[in-house]
């Protein structure tokens, strides 16, 4: 058991627990907080995979941005409806069976898949190469993403605008 392995199990346990909490807790507001935890745990997974840059992005965008937005949304709807948004589960058994089946299917693949078990090459700092890749081979994609974000921004504004 290397340190890495220990780290993995700890992080994995955290991630799974917080994920389960997200989908199971009846209080939506709590669910959001658990989601934040799950996102941070994912970031930790990225760290384990030696992608510190992604870890940073995950923290900033997800745990920071997304969670904030969701919280705002919940606050807004709560304010509008005047009561806390309740959360009962809808057909939990059906959902569990289907989810488990999908999981089993994927794992079935993984077991049969010829995955190279070789350890990866020693890792250098990938941040610089990510940056080069973004403006190099993926430049067009990046630009398109920009367009998408602008469109999404406008769309969100349009939807959320208050009617006169």
């Amino acid at each position, binding site marked *: 058991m290397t340190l890495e392995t220990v780290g993995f199990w700890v992080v994995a346990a955290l991630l799974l627990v917080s994920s389960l909490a997200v989908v199971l807790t009846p209080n939506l507001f709590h669910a959001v907080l658990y989601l934040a935890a799950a996102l941070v745990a994912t970031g930790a997974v990225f760290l384990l995979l030696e992608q510190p840059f992604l870890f940073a992005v995950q923290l900033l965008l997800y745990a920071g941005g997304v969670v904030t937005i969701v919280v705002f949304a919940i606050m807004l709807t709560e304010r509008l409806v005047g009561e806390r948004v309740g959360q009962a589960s809808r057909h939990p058994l*059906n959902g569990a069976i*289907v*989810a488990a*089946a*999908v999981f089993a*299917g*994927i794992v*079935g*693949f993984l077991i*049969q898949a010829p995955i190279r078990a070789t350890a990866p090459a020693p890792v250098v700092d990938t941040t610089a190469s990510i940056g080069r890749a973004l403006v190099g081979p993926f430049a067009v994609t990046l630009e398109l993403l920009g367009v998408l974000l602008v469109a999404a921004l406008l769309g969100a504004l349009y939807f959320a605008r208050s009617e006169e």
Partner: protein
Amino acid sequence: MTLPTVLPLLVWVLPFAAFVLLAVVAPLRRAGPRAGLLSIGAMGVAFMAALVVWVEDFRGEATWSWIPSDGGPIATVGVLVDPVSNAMLVLVTLVSLLVQVYSLAYLGDEPPASLGRYYTYQSLFAVSMLGLVLSPGFLQMFVFWELVGLCSYLLIGYWYERPAAARAAVKAFWITKLGDVGFVIGIVLLWSATGTFDFGELFAKAQEHALAIDRLGTIMFLIYLGAVGKSAQFPLHVWLPDAMEGPTPVSALIHAATMVTAGVFMVTRAEPLFALVPEVLTLIGWVGAFTALLAATMACVESDIKRVLAYSTVSQLGYMMAAAGAGAADAGFLHLLTHGLFKALLFLAAGAVIHTVGTNDIFRMGGLFRAMPQTALVFIVGTLALAGVPPLAGFFSKEAVLSGVWEAQLTGPFLMLALTALLTAFYMFRVVFVAFFGRAFGAGHPHEAPWLMRGPLWLLAALTVAVGIRLAMGGEHEAPAWLVSLSLALAFAGFALAWAMYQRGVVDPATFASALAPLDFLARRRYGIDALYGGLYRGLVLGFARLIGWIDRYLVDGVLNVLSALTLRGGDGLRRIQNGRPQDYVYGVAFGVLLLIVWAQLWR
């Protein structure tokens, strides 16, 4: 193109020009009498030209391509000038001319626009009939044959507001068209076998015995069917009596003197072809004789003067056809010509009577001899001619027909024709005695018709006599002496019977009729043939049509509508899967993923 073909062509072109002018120039047509004068003028010149053609005895042929095709024209049009067509030219133009003159007075009370329409039809009729007469081939003959039928339809329906006239016009068209179905199939078959419609070529082949065609008998029979319709032979004779709903001059023109003889003319024209198929000829002879007898019996019980004449026309057409069937086409054709003269005379005289009396019923006339002696006189001349009394025209042609049939050893038809001769004399004198003699009926003051109407009558009467004398002087009739005596005896017997019944009252018509009750019963109901057609039309044709219409609307289209309704229902059912709940859609996606996974696992 030489004079012998140009002049007959001119005869055709003149009425055609008149027709086009009247049809296209509406103000001229609406001018009424002036339109009539134009038509009469054209007809007059045409008659002169025809007379020249006849006197000079022109012969010739000229054709032009009509329907082209890769290997030379399929069909040609043109003029064929020979003694047969020359005689017909004269007859047609003469009767047309006289009828048109007569109509000017007869239809004088019509509104001008209607009168113009009438003369347009008249010109078109002359065009069609002359074109038919001049045809050098079957196709052109068929073309004008149909046009003649059209004119008949239009003229019978001239008073189109009268339901009876409208019905009669349509009936005439349908019945003749039924015969034409045979005609057209016949000429299509003939063309397919020989590749030509042309009389000249066909006759030449027939003479060289080069016309070895399978089923020539069938073909000629089919062509003959056309004549059955047009010349009102049994069983397609039913339209002619109804056609009397048209104005009387029309009846004179087309339903007596010219149009109905087209069938006889055609058989005469195609005689070299018919001669090749004796079995068809025999059939023609039998049908003709039977028609003659059948129509004569119906004429005996008819009280409408025009219908009597109409049945007499059917009867005389039967004579002509019997002659043609006996191989004596010349005799039939001669009878056609003489009959054209005196039947036109009879009709026009009847028209003069109807014009002044205002009814068609002979039992509501009576004693007209005193009121209108001139008309009565010419009517009697016509009657004598029709009954076959020498030296009038009808006698000689009838003799020729009878002797032709006798010589062909068609005993059955001969007996029928002889009996018909007796009946002819009877029913014609019946009309004469009832309408012109006896007690005056009272109401109204009958008077002579205006000279515009009397003129043509006298002319026709004179011609009937003149032609008769000309034939008598020619002395060409080779009939055996016993035949002459027989037919004279028959005519006299008919006359005597009519005289005894209707003049002297020696024999009571009612008693006589009850003696022949079954025949009387049938004849008064036209032997049920009209009813049969009516039943067939309403029951079979219309019934079947309704059935098909129903099937189309509710079964053929129904299958389609069921398909479309099922599609609609199916869509309606599938629509419910779209329940609008987003998570159920996610279930769908999840199942899709599972499906893909399973599929991928199985197919690895």
